[in-house]
């Protein structure tokens, strides 16, 4: 009994050989003449002022949050969608309730302006 993922395993090995081969070959043929100016951080030729860790807006986090919630809901909807033809009619109602609660989350975020990029 061989897992259906066996091919994915073989492919991972080969897929990681591709960048290794590419980078390795480039390492052989490319010029290597580093100097401090080349290795400085790119900022239109000027040195970076202050640290890289400027304060980011929590807005980014809210989008990631919405994504996590919808992703989990999608994972629970997929078995429903696969089994849908074998399920009795009330499965539609169950799923509609599920999706309605999901839509409620979207409406809440929308009303609270959490989705606005200001």
């Amino acid at each position, binding site marked *: *009994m*061989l*897992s*259906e*993922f066996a091919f*994915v*395993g073989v492919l991972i090995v080969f897929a990681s050989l591709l960048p290794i081969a590419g980078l390795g070959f480039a390492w052989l043929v490319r010029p290597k003449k580093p100097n401090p100016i080349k290795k400085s951080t790119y900022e239109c030729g000027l040195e970076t002022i202050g*640290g890289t*860790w*400027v*304060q*980011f*807006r*929590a*807005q*980014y*986090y*809210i989008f*990631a*949050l*919405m*994504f*996590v*919630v919808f*992703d*989990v*809901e999608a*994972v*629970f909807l*997929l*078995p*429903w*969608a*696969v*089994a*849908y033809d*074998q*399920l009795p009619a009330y*499965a539609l109602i*169950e*799923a509609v*309730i*599920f999706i309605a*609660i*999901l839509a*409620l*989350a979207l409406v*809440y*975020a929308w009303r*609270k302006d*959490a989705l606005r990029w200001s």
Partner: protein
Amino acid sequence: MLTNQMVQILVFVILTIMTLGGGLGVVSSRNLFHSALFLVLSLVGVVGYYALLDAGFLAVVQLLIYVGAIAVLILFAIMLSRGLMARRQHQRNEQWWIAALVVLLVFVVLLVVLGQVDWPVADEQALLSPNVSVGQLGQVLLGPYMIPFEVISVLLLAALVGAIILARET
């Protein structure tokens, strides 16, 4: 000649190195961002475990939710709390060695206890053909587990509402 069992054991060993090595990185790395990346490594190992255990749907769900969603959320949160990265502070609290002792004790006890239990392993025939498809999962999810199924969406709604209230800039 490679037998099926040898391949399975080889894969198991590689995945264990990934999972436990990643876990070790999570708790020992001084840089939080590296910690989170080690967590991803560990979780990808768990994806492999599920694939090896013939739980294909769970393997992909683990990859989607943990690696694709939760890990991104954690990395965002780390980047949002800016000063953490720059400050090279101690990552361990003062009681870490007590924690280490306790955890070591727990581990030894677990190993001994798990070894003594006589697990009611299913018979050979049942082990060969684990009989679970995504369609069956769906039927059970909308049948006997209907209430938890709906509750999950309520839970997620609650988590979202709470998190938006907390994380919004006022």
